[in-house]
């Protein structure tokens, strides 16, 4: 019972970065848990992927080539992964916490009787036992989880929590046949997200959103202008759309749009209700500008400015020469 097994996640022939993060995490745990670090690649044509995972602390790559694994299929993956785990008895199995692993990890953990936790962003080894940390209650608390009586543990790792490993390595690569398993679902097609035009909150990488703090309809236009000048899409909270100050298509939140592709979200004069957060709390870089230092928006912001949005906006315009 030792070593770390990582399942490679790939889609449309490309390895997903999250796999490199899992390898990075394994590198930091290898000393405490004991090697080897093994990556399992299940695919119709595993060779190029095997190369892509030959990085960092990886000692061994196992490939399983199956025509029915041209795309991810949970029942096929389950059979293969379980048979590899049964043979190798790793102390820790890692996979990214992603849409594919949702339908795989529970079946493997239950089937093999592994300790199990998902969306984990911290892993420690204490007295040889794995302890995982994840968040609960909408990120408001952290939860430490242990696995009494379990000899192996399966964790799915939250994206962005572990540094990806990219340094090339030369692990042993071996191809095996593993698991029977038959597909019970059939891939038909991919559909890429629709091209965007006009007001596009879901597609915008940079959103500047205004809330009731804007005060008056007469102030709204200057924020359209500011957003324009900064290269941002203007979004808003619901009361702004409800008042008819901006069209509904700009509303971010539960009953509006999801800022799905946003990387920088500046919330001005928005208190941060759950419903608004629904549309934006996942954004990596949130800047909150609010005159109330207690506003809940600050609890999810990476940067906070306690101040008057109109003054800050005015300064931005001046310094950016938008005036």
């Amino acid at each position: 019972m030792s070593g770390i097994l990582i399942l490679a996640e790939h889609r449309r022939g490309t390895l997903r970065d999250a796999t490199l993060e899992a390898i990075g995490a394994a590198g930091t745990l290898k000393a405490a848990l004991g090697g080897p670090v093994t990556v399992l690649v299940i695919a119709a044509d595993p060779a190029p992927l095997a190369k892509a995972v030959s990085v960092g602390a990886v000692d061994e790559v196992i490939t399983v080539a199956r025509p029915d694994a041209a795309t991810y299929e949970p029942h096929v993956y389950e059979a293969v992964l379980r048979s590899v785990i049964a043979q190798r008895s790793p102390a820790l199995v890692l996979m990214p916490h992603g849409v594919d692993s949702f339908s795989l990890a529970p079946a493997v953990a239950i089937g093999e009787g592994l300790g199990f936790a998902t969306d984990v962003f911290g892993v420690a080894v204490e007295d040889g036992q794995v302890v995982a940390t994840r968040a609960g209650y909408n990120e408001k608390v952290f939860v430490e989880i242990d696995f009494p009586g379990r000899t192996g543990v399966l964790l799915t790792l939250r994206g962005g929590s572990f540094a990806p490993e990219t340094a090339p390595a030369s692990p042993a690569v071996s191809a095996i046949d593993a698991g029977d398993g038959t597909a019970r679902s059939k891939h038909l097609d991919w559909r890429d997200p629709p091209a965007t035009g006009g007001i596009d909150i879901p597609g915008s990488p940079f959103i500047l959103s205004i809330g009731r703090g804007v005060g008056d309809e007469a102030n709204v236009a200057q924020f359209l202008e500011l957003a324009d000048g900064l290269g941002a899409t203007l979004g808003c909270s619901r009361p702004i759309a409800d008042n008819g100050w901006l069209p509904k298509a700009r509303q971010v939140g539960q009953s509006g749009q999801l800022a799905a592709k946003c990387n920088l979200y500046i919330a001005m004069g928005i208190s941060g209700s759950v419903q608004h957060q629904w549309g934006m709390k996942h954004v990596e870089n949130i800047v909150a500008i609010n005159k109330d230092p207690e506003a809940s928006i600050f609890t999810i912001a990476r940067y906070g400015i306690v101040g008057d949005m109109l003054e800050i906006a005015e300064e931005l315009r001046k310094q950016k020469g938008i005036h």
Partner: protein
Amino acid sequence: MRAPANMAALTGALIARGDAYLALPAYGAEGAEWAQAALARLLLSNARLKLVFAALPFAPPAFLALLAGEDRPAILQRIVRNPATSGATLLRLARQMDDAATRAALAAHAHTPSVALIGLAMNADAAVRAALLRNAGTPALALHALLDHADAAERAALARHPQADADLLRTLLAGGDAVVRAEAVAHPHCPLTQVADACVDADAAIRRRAASNPVLPPSLRQALMGDSDPAVRAEALRLHAEGQDVALTDDGDVRVRRAQARHVAVPEDLAEVLSRDGDVWVRVWLARNPALPAGLIQRLGGDAEARVRHAAGRNPACPADMLATLARDGDEWVRAAVACRPDLPTEALRALEREDGEDVASAVARNPQTREAALRRLARHGQADVRRAVALNPDAPAAALRLLLDDPYPLNRAFAVRHPNLPVADAWGCADDGAPQVRFAVGKRAVTHAAAAGRAARRHLETFPQP
């Protein structure tokens, strides 16, 4: 189901129902004093609700005063942060709790009495200092107390605090820090000589801040309007009041032109030039400018950019025929701009009443001129936001509001219950609503009604004294 008409009957009914949300508005209401103890028992019966009510910004201040007698620290901390908490309650809690978080919350609260703020300033930690500097009510005396240990950022904050007096500003300026100076010269209480110096400073940022001083004398403002830096010119223009004798002239810089376009005193010939400006924002600002002559609003209402036409449609001075034209615009957002205007010509409104799109339909629903039949239809619109707009229409008739009482969306029911055109009897019919916010609204409506009835009855007694 009739709503109890007087406060005694109402309070009795509220207590009998045993619903804390419904009863909450009655606590402390005039005429309900006799039942205070029974109300208190009901409102304090549940640990979870005590926490919820302590943080509720529309909880009656008298109830928060009562709740302040609880022991649980989490409840008291919420009361200190609740914007509805009265100064007296805050003072009481200030004497009782001395932890850092409470002190900071007191320092930030708009109702904390001046004496307490001055006391807090005396030996304040960083969080309390920051809160005092942000609290617009912090008196000058407290600001002076903060000066001693102020670091650079705090000195800048002191220089921009609305209660900073000339003495404080003079002391701050004597420190010689450029950032502090930039704040101080924009302050209306700044000594004039210092402002005048700033107007001719070598640093454009300082001149710009001076230009934003709201009490800048006209002669200095005039001088800054000829400044070499466009940002300074634009700023000087922004606060230049109508009627002051300053000529606005053609300017090469887009920032200045945008500021001119917003200016109420933009002269007609300049406006004429600006209305053809290549910069869309110049035209947007101009189109919104209420001082613009009708002819120019007409022209901008025909602009190729929908944003400009929208702005023209929002201009209070937009002439009726232009409103009618914009009501037929191909762009929905432009039509929505005029759809909520009470001065929209009747036929144009009637045509828009038939539209179903969300932006136009919500605007029509808010328009006080919209017909009852149309409002009744919009009260059953597929979009909840459109239906709620009916409840936000100040002239919405009871017949339309009643439909909203069956709205599946609780917020819409709450809005309808609050609407003064909905008879209290109808509102009272929602006392069993599943959503707490609706029941609270019902309680509030009934209490306000009974209190008004009580006042009217007393007035009646005063006018016709009983033998």
